[in-house]
């Protein structure tokens, strides 16, 4: 099950957040800050799945933007990884110019 869907930039500013479970407002900002810290500390050749507290993070980096999805253990991590790319491609289809520039897509 997907717990949340985030788009955070390298400076830690949240560009999009959607929580599918109730999380307090103040906890959200803390959570996002910690998550981006975790993702930033990973190098290029490390895998995209991080174990964080009691769920997993699947993240994908597009230029300066990180798309992070929090899932629980019943999900297929690689399918979610594909889902992130699918989402980005959909955004690209609808808002092409803006998205391509921001995310350095093809």
């Amino acid at each position, binding site marked *: 099950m997907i717990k949340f869907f985030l788009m955070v930039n390298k400076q830690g500013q*949240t560009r*999009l*957040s959607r929580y599918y479970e*109730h999380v307090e*407002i*103040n906890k*959200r*900002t803390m959570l996002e800050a910690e998550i981006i810290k975790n993702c930033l500390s990973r*190098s290029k*050749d*490390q*895998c*995209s*799945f*991080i*174990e964080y507290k009691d769920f997993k993070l699947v993240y994908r980096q597009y230029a300066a933007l990180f798309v992070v999805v929090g899932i629980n253990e019943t999900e*297929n*991590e*690689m*399918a979610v*990884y*594909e*889902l992130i790319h*699918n989402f980005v491609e959909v955004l690209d289809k609808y808002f092409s110019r803006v998205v391509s520039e921001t995310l350095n897509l093809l």
Partner: protein
Amino acid sequence: MPAPIRLRELIRTIRTARTQAEEREMIQKECAAIRSSFREEDNTYRCRNVAKLLYMHMLGYPAHFGQLECLKLIASQKFTDKRIGYLGAMLLLDERQDVHLLMTNCIKNDLNHSTQYVQGLALCTLGCMGSSEMCRDLAGEVEKLLKTSNSYLRKKAALCAVHVIRKVPELMEMFLPATKNLLNEKNHGVLHTSVVLLTEMCERSPDMLAHFRKVSLVPQLVRILKNLIMSGYSPEHDVSGISDPFLQVRILRLLRILGRNDDDSSEAMNDILAQVATNTETSKNVGNAILYETVLTIMDIKSESGLRVLAINILGRFLLNNDKNIRYVALTSLLKTVQTDHNAVQRHRSTIVDCLKDLDVSIKRRAMELSFALVNGNNVRGMMKELLYFLDSCEPEFKADCASGIFLAAEKYAPSKRWHIDTIMRVLTTAGSYVRDDAVPNLIQLITNSVEMHAYTVQRLYKAILGDYSQQPLVQVASWCIGEYGDLLVSGQCEEEEPIQVTEDEVLDILESVLISNMSASVTRGYALTAIMKLSTRFTCTVNRIKKVVSIYGSSIDVELQQRAVEYNALFKKYDHMRPALLERMPVMEKVTTNGPTDIVQTNGETEPAVLETKPPPSGLQPASQANDLLDLLGGSDITPVIPTAPTSKPASAGGELLDLLGDLNLTGSPISAPAPQIAQPPFLLDGLSSQPLFNDIAAGIPSITAYNKNGLKIDFTFERSNTNPSVTVITIQASNSTELDMTDFVFQAAVPKTFQLQLLSPSSSVIPAFNSGTITQVIKVLNPQKQQLRMRIKLTYNHKGSAMQDLAEVNNFPPQSWQ
């Protein structure tokens, strides 16, 4: 009032903020503007304001004052208003706020709206934040929409149904008829959401699961999956050459749930699983995602062995892949399957061990767990080498887990004692500070058990702490061993290795430095001090030095150390005759698990420092030498001697040492409960008896006997037996003195044959007054499970007329009723 700015402007403005404080200021200003606009009840711009509010909410600022506005927007007729209103409801409202119930009517109306998009909005919102009351009210509408032919609505209704079922499980049956035709759709959206709905139903209710198995859902799913794989290129569903991988993964997951523990279903899906496993393209991540799901399904259902081998081979191939994600996923799945398909996974052991050297933390953790699961008797040496190397180089967060894992594996599969001790030494020296606290007593117990390795062990431990005594668990184990086996160290006997020349002073040097060092924890210092004390009996020329050290710590600030030092000092001064007995070598310990009332959880290694806390005994104690006499006198036949306890508690370490001397002595004690180490002691005797001093139900009178009558000392035995526990006999002895002088320091000792067990409670006093003017009473409990004839040898010691008297006697005249 100027028109409120658009959302776009707001975003642009906020992005120009350079600091957090600036951003907060801008947002507060805008919030104030929005609030005043709400107060004016302005319909035209409400939508815009709420949109901005939602954006600010997403950034983390409170937006609760917009909740009612969302409701007003939902009630409006304009689609743009409704859209923002429902979005706001999804983000800001949930069942915690009471206002959400006001939405119910709006949603109901919108579910029956003429425009499908409005219906869609309502379905989305209900499916996102509907509370149980709302779901109950609106479930009927949702179910109606589930049967509509409009695929746009159908898929949304399916997802809404999932939410309804989660909130109100009782409503599941309502949706059952609608599911019949769901899978006949061509539209992938409907197919996907239907599979999600079916999955949710199957997971929640075993009845549903059985129903779906019967309704031959599996063949339907198999057919759909087959179409997906076989069909040609379909542009709207294509992802990197594979047709709708997301749907494929969902179907595979549902197949997994259906096939679990069910042979028929599993058989029906065998073919398709094999087909997916072999035909899917593995060059891209998409294909691998599908293969991963397939492997998980194969391992979970009752598949045939050929299929399982195929699955594990796929995982093996994943392990060799360069992509980290795939390797991680493979390691995770292998961990799940290693329990069931151990041999198959063993084949990939070398690859797994290579993953230990990977740079990625997640992969390393998985590889470590998997390696521990794969260790067995055959590969333990090789695996241990790799794991020790890993322990050396891994991150600190792994070291504790790795060390514990290595200890466990070494314990289970050690090929030889020396190897085991070498491995432990290696772990202690490389990751000594990360070893868990409970490992120390386990290690100590292990070391005492390998008797022939004592010299080797103590030598290696000594060398290890010579250089570095900062790792606490290592120093604790080393101090304990040096304290126990210091004499072996100094005498230089070691068969396994080149013996080193160590003098007594050098050993004391290192122990003293541990005591003084700032790096040593309080517990470690305790260990060191006790070790130094023990060496006073093992070393010959440095006793004075030891005395000095002990007396220094008598005024230490640390209360624990101070108490120990004071007691040891007392040992030197007042009870020097008892010191050798008290500080004798520890016996071999058995691993004791929690054992009910006796409750000795830890081995002697742990209790030993605690044990010596009890005060040194008063003069009533029988030192070991006397116990020795008893043993000699009794000829060491099948009699097990029993030493009674003094009236007050005595340090059980004395008991420990006595135990060593006297083999399997049954140390039965009165009031001490915890500190007395009961080695190989069946607890039932103490369990039943220690809580009840005497039985309340006394059997028919058993004649009492005079057990001993000599030199004016008479000892009578009276018997009691319980109906509830017929193998126990309680003997009360009464000792009286018919001479004209008191008998002082009277101690009664008894020994019974091996098949019996004896417990001596404390005597009433140790002085028998003269002229029969008083008696000493003492209670003996005898356990006689085999109902053999009771025999007893007794030994009496006392002071009379200024001289110490001692006598032995055998009591054979027990009445038959006392033991039959």
